[in-house]
Structure formats: structure tokens, C-alpha cells
């Protein structure tokens, strides 16, 4: 029972990070029908920028909370600009091209970001300097660190605000209208290019926060870290129903829990043949199962268009 509670806590924390990254995939897919495979790498850039800021400021003796805010702010700024430029340079010229063209471009952008990061930060793992000493809270015999709690609460707050924003704000309504019919949205006075650019900025900024969380959680960063994170978040988005913002939140949390549970019990279940280092299998097992059984995902829309 303790393992269960512990893995549930770990899964929710991990899942909330997946969910934040998944939001970036799903929002862009919703509005453009494009899988932005560079999104995981945007998150990686955010993580490494945050790491660099922490390294620089922690050495200078700046207080930890201020360091975190500045690291997050810099990561958000860099990632937003990156998302904006990628959309403008790599995707907008291909807006009316066959779907395969932007998809291949996305993979190209992903590789470009990875090796640019390798040039800037090198190919070795970068360690996070000791910044905070998280205390542990006892929940039903399981441990939750204050860092885990902070990550989970912040992620949930971001998701709640985003869901509200898309549902209730004028801009959110314009995003949904552009998603459903860009030409008619234009007739309503919506500058759809600006809405699409805004969607990229929003997704990238949220990805930047997720990048900072990953760095704090695991204590290291690496130029290739966006690859696996991106694939898992993509899986989470597909699991929830790609294009559906609420689905990305649910898919992310669910995938985190599935992965943690699997890595907690895999040793017992296989008599010690497989260890928890095999946990990545489960994310992709989930991806295959969803695509086979319910390709539209858990909250996928089966088209309400009758006109």
C-alpha cells in the first residue's frame, strides 16, 4: 500500500510536467493540424537556459527564490521568442503546403535545436547547483517533498488558468474559432496569423516552465533531454485526444501515474527480471494501445460539424 501511495504521488508530479508539455503539442495541433515535433526541444532549451541562470546567480550568492523566479523568467522569454520565430520562419511559409512538408520541417527544427544546444552547452550532462533543500512531508506512509508539492501545485495552477483562458476570454474564443474555421474567423475580424503566433508563444512559455521543473526535479540537464520528454508528452496528448486541451491535462497525469506504477511494480511482477529502468516501455505501450483501440483519444472529438 505504501508503494502504491508513493508511486501515485510520484506519478502525479511527473504527470503534471508531462501535461504542461503536452499542452504545447495539443494547442498547436488544434489550431494548425501540425505535430510540432520541435516542442520537446523548446522545453529542453528552456531547461538549459534556466540551468545556466541558476548556475550564474547561485554562485553570486543571490537568494534562492529570486534565482528561481529569474531562471523561470529568462526561460519563458527565450522560449517564447524561439516559438515565435520558429512559427514565422519554418511553419508559416508552409501553411498551405501538403501536410507532410511541415511535419518533416518540424523534425528538422527539432534536430537544429538539439545540435545548437550541443554547440552552446556541450554534450555532457550539466548538474544543477545545490539551490534548495526540500523537506519531506509524510502522506499516508509515503513521502512527498516540498519540491514535488510545489511543482504539482504550480502545474495545476497554470493548467487551470489556461483552461479558463481558452474557455472564457476573448482571445481564447478567437483561438477556438480559428481552430474550427480560420477563413470565417478572419471574417469576424480575427487576425488569424496573430492568433496562431500567440498559440506558439503560449505553448512555448508553458514548455519553458516545464523545462525548469524538470531541471529542479532531476537536478540535471542535457541537450538531448527534450527528445524523450517530447515523445512522452506527445503520447500524453494523444492519450487525452490530440487537439483537446482538457485531454492533454488528463492524458499527462494519467501517463505519469501509469509510468510510476509500472516502474514501482515491474520488479515484483516479473520476478526481478525487469527493473524500473524499463519504465519507458510503458509510455509507448500506452501510445500503441491508444492508437489501436481509440485513436481519437480519451476526450477526442468525433466532429460536431453538420453544416
Amino acid at each position, binding site marked *: 500500500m505504501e508503494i502504491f501511495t508513493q508511486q501515485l504521488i510520484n506519478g502525479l508530479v511527473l504527470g503534471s510536467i508531462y501535461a504542461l508539455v503536452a499542452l504545447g503539442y495539443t494547442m498547436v495541433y488544434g489550431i494548425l493540424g501540425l505535430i510540432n515535433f520541435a516542442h520537446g526541444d523548446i522545453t529542453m532549451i528552456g531547461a538549459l537556459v534556466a540551468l545556466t541562470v541558476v548556475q550564474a546567480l547561485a554562485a553570486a550568492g543571490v537568494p534562492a527564490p529570486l534565482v528561481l523566479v529569474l531562471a523561470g523568467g529568462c526561460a519563458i522569454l527565450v522560449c517564447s521568442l524561439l516559438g515565435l520565430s520558429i512559427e514565422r520562419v519554418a511553419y508559416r511559409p508552409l501553411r498551405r503546403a501538403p501536410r507532410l512538408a511541415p511535419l518533416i520541417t518540424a523534425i528538422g527544427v527539432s534536430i537544429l535545436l538539439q545540435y545548437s544546444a550541443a554547440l552552446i552547452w556541450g554534450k555532457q550532462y550539466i548538474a544543477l547547483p545545490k539551490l534548495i533543500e526540500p523537506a519531506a512531508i509524510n502522506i499516508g506512509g509515503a513521502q512527498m517533498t516540498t519540491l514535488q508539492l510545489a511543482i504539482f501545485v504550480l502545474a495545476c495552477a497554470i493548467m487551470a488558468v489556461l483552461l479558463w483562458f481558452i474557455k472564457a476570454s476573448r482571445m481564447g474564443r478567437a483561438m*477556438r474559432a480559428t481552430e*474550427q474555421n480560420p477563413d*470565417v474567423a478572419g471574417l469576424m475580424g480575427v487576425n488569424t496569423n496573430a492568433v496562431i503566433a500567440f498559440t506558439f508563444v503560449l505553448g512555448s512559455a508553458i514548455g519553458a516552465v516545464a523545462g525548469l521543473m524538470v531541471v529542479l526535479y532531476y537536478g540535471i540537464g542535457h541537450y538531448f533531454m527534450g527528445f524523450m520528454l517530447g515523445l512522452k508528452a506527445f503520447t500524453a496528448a494523444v492519450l487525452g485526444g490530440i487537439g483537446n486541451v482538457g485531454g492533454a491535462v488528463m492524458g499527462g497525469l494519467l501517463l505519469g501515474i501509469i509510468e510510476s506504477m509500472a516502474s514501482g511494480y515491474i520488479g515484483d511482477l516479473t520476478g526481478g527480471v525487469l527493473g524500473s529502468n524499463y519504465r519507458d516501455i510503458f509510455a509507448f505501450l500506452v501510445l500503441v494501445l491508444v492508437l489501436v483501440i481509440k485513436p481519437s483519444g480519451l476526450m477526442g472529438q468525433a*466532429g460536431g460539424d453538420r453544416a
Partner: protein
Amino acid sequence: MSRGKLLEVRGLEVAYGGIRAVQGVDLAVAAGEIVALIGANGAGKTTTLKALCGLLRPKSGSLHYEGADVTGKPAYHLVRKGLSLVPEGRGVFPLLTVAENLAMGAYIRNDHDAIRNDFDRVYALFARLAERRNQLAGTLSGGEQQMLAIGRAMMSRPRLLLLDEPSMGLAPLMVQKIFETVRAIAAEGVTLLLVEQNARLALETCSRGYVMESGRVVLEDSAAALLASPRVRQAYLGE
């Protein structure tokens, strides 16, 4: 640019790929007029409207609206100037509610009190929409979607309203209801340019008309004269 013209089009050409769908159209609409644009399927009526409202970029020719050259300006710019299109096939946002669709119509406006009044006005005009305000637009019938599309366009407070085939695919009773509304909108002082395949209904509603064939305007006259013209009677009124 002559005086009193709200919209003036000269030598409009629009091409899809290599195909010239509109080949040199001239037309003008004065403020307060109701003008019909009739013609067979594929004559270029919808393409003309799409170019007028900025959804398609003309290959050549000029568009003047309220005396200003707006050739090649995007749709989101023109709607701010009071030029609004109700597109063919309604184009409602299926996954937004009726109320959200109407709110999109008022996207360019900031006068919240007046917007609230306009919501009430649209709901008074179309009681069905009021009943279904929280329903997704995709679940409405074709006629209800047409009401929504017209109501949504009214929410932008247009000066010139372009209507593309408002009767398409609707039952006769619904067509009557829609045309009653069109006349009511015109009576409020909104200038209308109406594209219709139902030529008789269009000409009976409008004061003036243009007839398009193969991407060109072939006739232009008062609605009464067009209704009496043998050519129109034979080709479009089924006589």
C-alpha cells in the same frame, strides 16, 4: 470614384491556380441599396464575393470601399470598416455555442453595453436562437445555422452586408423566414449585396441586379427590368 458609392469594383479578376474564375467584373453598390448578383452554378458569384470581403486576393482590378482603395486588404481589416460577409454554407463555428458564435460576430467591438443590446436584438429577431443559446452550433438545423450566421454578421454592425446563397439547402418555409429577415435588415439601413441561385426571390427582394455568366457580368439593370427581360426569364426563371 463616383459619389454615393459604398462599394465600387473595377476590372476584378480572380484566379484559382491557373483557372480564371472571375474575368473582369465591374460592379457598384450605393449606400442604402439592395443589390442582387444572380447566375448559374460556377458563374463566379461566390468567388466575386470572397474577393470583395478580402478572403481571396484579386489577380487584378481594384476595390474601393467608402471611397478608399482596399484592394488586397485582408478580411479581418475590412470587417473593421463595416464590410461583413455571411459565407456560403453558413460557416458557423460548430463547436462553439450559439452565444459564443454571436460573441465572435462582435469580436471587433468594445462597446459592451451596446453588444448586450445587440444580443437581445438578434434573439428577438430569431427566437429559436434564444432558446438554443447554450447549445453547440453544430447541433442546429440548417435553417437555424443560417439564422445564426446572419445574426452573427449583424453583431459586427455592418454597413455593407454580403450574403452568399442564404436560401441554399433550406425548406421553403425557412427560405421565406430568412428573406423576411433580410428585408428587415435592409429596412434598418444596412446596404446589401445578395448572391442567390433563386433568381426570382432575389430580384423580388432587391432593387437592382447583376447577372453573371462564366466569370463576367453580362447584364445589369433594375430588378423589375431584369424580371421582365426575356433572357433572364428563359435562363434563370425557368420560363
